[in-house]
């Protein structure tokens, strides 16, 4: 296995992009990544695209080939990767493995979702397919409902409160103010979250990540050749993935995502690092309770202490550990197929010192954590400057 580095990354603007099509978003992010890497299209040898629900929503399948076509990269091999909200994360890992194996020196990885053209009840059906269609969605279980069921157990077992959950959304909106790509640039208060109305009790509207259009892309290169392209590549020092039962009810424990714990343990072992070594992490906060479980499952805080830590501000920018400096899924927006790659772009900027007003001081080691569905897929990557 060879070492693999990111030599460029780019995002489309996230938000309600009614003026842009699915393929426009891919081109917007892909072009930004290629320009950032300073490479020619002919140097890219393969492309991996993450997308969850293009068929169900925009009606477009075969999007790997569409990525290659509209980025002007035919005839290179183009492959779509799907793992619900972790589609971007598994696409990134597929590209990582393709370079690490020695098969290719340079690959492009992209992720996209076009979601705001559609009615929210239809989007709920599309996202519901990330769980067990026959035993969850069939009975009216939406994704907020599944995380609400986890939240209620977390409240019972650890005394986590709705205010603690709300504090994650408040912090993420605060970070997003300084992210020009984010969907939201408004600060919110705990009262705003508490008064925002239940979606699935105890989760309220402002506990939930929004429906978003967006795309993200990175260019991966064998580390031994990466410095030919730029002086500050970011090395992926571990990339780990794990799976769990497709339906929430089949899990032994509902106050953790077991796949996150397995992937994190593997990533720490491969990188020979421990949780306290991580300076900045982008974690999968599809719901506020998901951020609390993530910072526990990734080992930053003991089980049950994620809620109090969030409320006390220990996850704020330049505090004990900087969590979701981009604004997370909550405030940057969550175009599901793009999220896992957007996280990597944010960590790349942090480690290159390019995160502007949301820069973590002396950030040396970064992590991304991307989850599919209610936790049936988790991808954990660790990064440092090459």
């Amino acid at each position, binding site marked *: 296995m060879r070492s693999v580095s990111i030599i460029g990354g780019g995002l489309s603007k996230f938000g309600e992009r009614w003026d842009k099509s699915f393929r426009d978003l891919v081109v917007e992010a892909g072009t930004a990544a290629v320009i950032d890497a300073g490479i020619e299209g002919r140097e890219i040898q393969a492309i991996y695209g993450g997308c969850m629900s293009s068929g169900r929503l925009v009606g477009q399948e075969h999007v790997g080939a569409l990525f290659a076509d509209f980025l002007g990269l035919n005839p290179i091999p183009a492959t779509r990767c799907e793992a619900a909200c972790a589609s971007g994360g598994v696409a990134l890992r597929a590209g990582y493995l393709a370079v690490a194996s020695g098969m290719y020196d340079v690959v492009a990885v992209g992720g996209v979702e076009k979601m705001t053209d559609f009615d929210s009840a239809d989007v709920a*059906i599309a996202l519901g397919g990330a769980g067990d269609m026959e*035993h969850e969605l*069939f009975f*009216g279980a939406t994704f907020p409902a599944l995380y609400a069921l986890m939240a209620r157990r977390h409240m*019972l077992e650890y005394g986590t409160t709705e205010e603690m959950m709300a504090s994650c959304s408040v912090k993420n909106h605060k970070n997003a103010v300084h992210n020009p790509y984010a969907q939201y640039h408004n600060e919110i208060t705990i009262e705003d979250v508490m008064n925002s109305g*239940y979606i*699935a*009790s105890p989760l309220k509207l402002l506990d939930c990540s929004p429906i978003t259009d967006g795309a993200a892309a990175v260019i991966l290169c064998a580390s031994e050749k990466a410095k030919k392209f730029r002086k500050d590549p970011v090395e992926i020092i571990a990339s780990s993935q794990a799976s769990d039962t497709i339906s929430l009810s089949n899990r032994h424990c*509902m106050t953790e995502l077991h796949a996150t714990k397995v992937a994190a343990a593997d990533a720490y072992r491969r990188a020979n690092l421990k949780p306290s070594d991580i300076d900045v992490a982008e974690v999968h906060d599809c719901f506020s309770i998901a951020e609390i479980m993530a910072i526990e499952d990734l080992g930053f805080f003991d089980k049950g202490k994620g809620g109090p830590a969030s409320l006390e501000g220990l996850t704020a920018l330049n505090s004990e550990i900087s969590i979701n400096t981009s604004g997370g899924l909550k405030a940057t927006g969550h175009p599901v197929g793009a999220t896992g790659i957007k996280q990597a772009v944010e960590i790349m900027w942090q480690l290159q010192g390019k995160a502007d007003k949301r820069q973590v001081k002396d950030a040396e080691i970064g992590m991304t954590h991307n989850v599919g569905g209610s936790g049936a897929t988790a991808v954990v990557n660790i990064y440092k400057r090459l």
Partner: protein
Amino acid sequence: MKHPLPLIWRMIPEKYYLMGSHCATCKNDFFPFRQICPNCRRLGKVSEKRMPTTGTVYSFTEVSAPPSGFEFEVPYPLAIIELDNKVKILAQIIDAPMEKIRIGSRVQMRFRRVGDDDEESAISYGYKFALIEDAASSAKTDKPAKTPKPTVSKG
């Protein structure tokens, strides 16, 4: 949400009678039915088994933002139920105000119409759960229920 007729037909044992599976090797029950025991894999001896129809509420929520097909039911309570054989199952709670639902509440399976299909597709039925009074009343109904009659009552 529109369910194709063969799918509705295929799922009758599971959705009407809580048909899951039992592994004779490790003595574990599973729902939904799975052919391969995840504990024993090829050493597993898996057969069909009906789940008990009573259990307790393990977690619950009230859904206010529905997926399409459930617009006319909101808000509706949804729960993870731990059946009396420790197998967990997700289902709606019916005929009870939210204030009465607690973690630990005793529940029993009911047979109901599920969702609101469009007029041209077949009607989906399946299990939902209702609160029952106490442990004494649940003990009497602990055995798998007889084949429930498909009485059409939307809940």
